[in-house]
């Protein structure tokens, strides 16, 4: 008897949990399904990262008031949002709109989960780099809301003047009595994103561009002469200890906060930490090791419309006509402190000298390639750079990198 009773209690718990789970799964994203049947029933589900839910709520409420379409903002984990979107859209249970980054575009489009967007005449209201990044294969897929690029954070108490070039930066830092004046996030597997400005200064972009200005996977520029020259330079800096693969993001931050480094090549996401750490921060362009401009990658953030959305008309309308307004873009800016993609909002935001600093650097930035071939590049790029920094033969390692990438793209 007694054992029996325990069995039934356990069973009750199990059944309750499993039915709830099943029901939960079913209700999780299916709200879009019945959406189109009645006008009063129309709703949009929007996936955003948790930090920006509040920033969008105002726009969502305004849209509901005006059109009667309910906009449900769902906070999601940034790390899983892309894979969840790709997996759920084909089942018809994904959201109508998701927040994302432009370098997902290749993957999203290859999987057929995004629908093109028509910005119409408002296209010219966005920063050039934002619009360029939102375009894939000739069609615009993303409503951009922020442009992110790295720049040099300078501790103005240690070094008062911006550096004119790379050697000058090291010299100024040494003059200030620092062993390791410049830090940049690396790691055992390198970090090519942060080293890219130097690579472009040697005239070696990853891919060439075709007539329309889109990256061309068939035109791999990585292994060009400039690439080898860049590898030589990496090797020299590694030998001199200027670049060190043992410095990861946390160590770089600590060195800068401790005043052991005066220059830190990083993105806007780290400015808060530096300012909170009491550092007198100024934003400088990336000092070039050559006489060419050092252009960092620009990452553009934006919103995509699901290809299986039953409410594409409302989704387009909400994105282009509501999220594409200065007010909403500034709301989003406040939530993330990243330069808005709408030119008018960007100019307003740039009243902050830090944002203005990043905006100046961003003028030279190039969009990170979104083509699927870029995935293969990331896979080998950092490790090769790390090897060169750690003393591997620059020319041979770089050649192997170019060969491996070329092989992987095929």
């Amino acid at each position, binding site marked *: 008897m*007694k*054992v*029996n*009773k325990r*069995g*039934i209690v356990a*069973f009750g718990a*199990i*059944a*309750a949990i*499993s*039915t709830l789970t*099943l*029901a939960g799964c*079913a*209700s999780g994203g*299916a709200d879009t*399904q*019945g959406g189109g*049947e009645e*006008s009063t029933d*129309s709703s949009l589900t929007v996936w955003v990262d948790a930090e920006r839910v509040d920033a969008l709520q105002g726009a969502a409420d305004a849209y509901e008031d005006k059109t*009667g*379409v309910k906009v449900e903002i769902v906070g999601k984990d940034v790390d899983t949002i892309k894979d969840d979107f*790709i*997996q759920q*859209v084909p089942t018809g249970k994904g959201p109508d709109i998701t927040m994302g980054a432009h370098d997902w575009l290749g*993957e999203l*489009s*290859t*999987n*057929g*989960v995004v*629908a*093109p967007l*028509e910005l*119409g*005449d408002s296209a010219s209201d966005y920063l050039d780099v934002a619009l360029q990044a939102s375009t894939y294969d*000739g069609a615009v897929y993303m409503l951009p809301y922020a442009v992110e690029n790295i720049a040099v954070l300078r501790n103005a108490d240690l070094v008062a003047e911006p550096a004119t070039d790379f050697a000058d930066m090291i010299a100024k830092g040494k003059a200030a009595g620092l062993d390791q004046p410049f830090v940049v996030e690396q790691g*055992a*597997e390198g970090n090519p994103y942060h080293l890219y400005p130097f690579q472009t200064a040697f005239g070696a972009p990853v891919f060439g561009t075709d007539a329309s200005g889109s990256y061309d996977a068939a035109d791999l520029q990585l292994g060009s002469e400039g690439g080898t020259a860049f590898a030589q330079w990496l090797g020299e800096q590694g030998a001199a200890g200027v670049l*060190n693969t*043992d*410095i990861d993001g946390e160590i770089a931050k600590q060195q800068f906060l401790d005043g052991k480094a005066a220059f830190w090549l990083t993105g806007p996401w780290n400015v808060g930490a530096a300012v909170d750490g009491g550092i007198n921060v100024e934003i400088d362009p990336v000092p070039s090791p050559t006489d060419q401009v050092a252009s960092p990658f620009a990452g553009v953030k934006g919103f995509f419309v699901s*290809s*299986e959305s*039953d*409410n*594409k*008309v*409302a989704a*387009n309308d909400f994105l*282009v006509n509501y999220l594409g307004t200065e007010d909403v873009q500034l709301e989003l800016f406040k939530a993330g402190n990243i330069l808005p993609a709408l030119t008018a909002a960007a100019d307003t935001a740039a009243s902050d000298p830090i944002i203005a600093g990043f905006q100046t650097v961003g003028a030279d930035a190039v969009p990170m390639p979104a083509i*699927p071939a*870029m*995935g293969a590049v*990331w896979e*080998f790029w950092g490790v090769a750079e790390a090897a060169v920094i*750690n003393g591997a033969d620059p020319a041979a390692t770089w050649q192997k990198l170019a060969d*491996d990438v070329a092989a992987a793209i095929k």
Partner: protein
Amino acid sequence: MSDTTAVEKAEAEQTPPPTRRQRQAASIAEAASGRIGWMLLKIVLLAIVDAIALYAAFVLFTHHEWVVLALVVLVTVLVNYIYFSRKAVPAKYLTPGVIFLIVFQVFTLLYTGYIGFTNYGTGHNGSKDQAVAALMRSAQERVEDSPAYPVTVVEQLGTLGLLVTDPEDGDISVGTNDQPLAEVDGATMEGGEATAVDGWTSLSFAQVLARSNEIEQLSVPFSDDPNDGAIRTPDGQNGYLYVSSLEYDEAAGTMTDTDSGTVYKDIGTGAFTSADGEELLPGWQITVGFDNFVRAVTDESIRGPLISVTIWTFVFALISVASTFFLGLLLALVFNNTRMRFRNGYRILLILPYAFPAFLSALVWAGMMNESFGFINQVILGGASIPWLTDPVLAKVSVLIVNLWLGFPYMFLVCMGALQGIPDEVNEAGVMDGANPWQIFRQIKLPLLLVTVAPLLISSFAFNFNNFNLIYMLTNGGPRFDDVSIPVGHTDILISMVYKVAFTGQTRDYGLASAFTIIIFIVVAVISIISFRKTKALEELN
């Protein structure tokens, strides 16, 4: 059975002074164990289950989830039958476990198995219809320098059309999917845009939203010449002129590129493929038989590192089990000595590594083993620069050390329990017979210990064989092999290699990953079965 006797024993012991609370508890227990109480309890619990199931069914019904709904109803009915019937006594015990087993084990296993036989992955993500729709959508190119046309969606006898105002010459025209734009007169104007015209009903914005899917399909030819393109409206208010660079012939199952004339055929590989092998992506999901399994063992890029990775996986799993077991056993023996003071304090300290989340520990160790900034080199070794994680051999040693640190507390706990289960008489008998301590340990205690611990060692082997977290967090497989063209390194084990091969960069190959998982499952299952057979022999000892 033993439970009941234990309870009875406990009750017998506490008879003398029953406090008020105990009396209350006893009376509740009495009532509950009675026939009516038992019935009531059963009914209440089943009512709760049914209520939840009913709610779930309702939610599922509103979302048109027919399959899951049928399952929930079926299971609920079955459960009610089992617990109300007087006959199905064994089922009463088995049902909860079986339901759990099906939901959490059988379903996942079968699903993984199924995926292993498909080409599910990047570019093969959905159905063919979805792929065709996505291709056609992305093939729409806006005609350069064409203006934005203010449009109104209109309806006539159930057919949707567009009322278009030309912003350049102010012409008003109407057209549908089948009828190219034709000029109309007498339209109602509002701010320079036509909003209504006789014979057509204008749709309100809410109606436009409600018929979103039809409006997405609405493509009004600009003129009789299809090369002029068609007007579409993405937001129901503005129309744009598009031309399509792809043409789909449903009957022939082909896609034609209108610019280059290339014909892409469905050749059964899950994507439209041109004569020279170029694929149009997205494609769609199909079953591919044993292709993934064949690729898993024959693919050029995988075959290279496969052997060394497999050897290292076995070495890693075996050494991890052996080292953690012997360290755990040694410590258990030491702390089993009752003469030691503060035994419990030491024990708690030793169990600490087990209490931290494993991947957190792995990350902390990765930081401590950093060559120029790590705690080990900087503080413990006074500024040495030992490449703990970047030298191929040392990285393997580091992985084993960290896994030893992570794994020994478990073995310590298990061995401590098992040792306490060995009666002292055995020890005494050995001493009487003149055995020295080593002989007692080696020939009496260890075999007795292994009877209980051996199955745990096997499961520990299976766990370490697939210890993805540790490798991924500590070294991420690095340092990389110099001579292979996939991003695999010296400390990669099979499961982390699979992860890298199947999910390289932006490519997600779920089919290949599932096939690999099944192969690994078979390997581990075979080893486990053989080992369990062997341990049966140990049980003869008891």
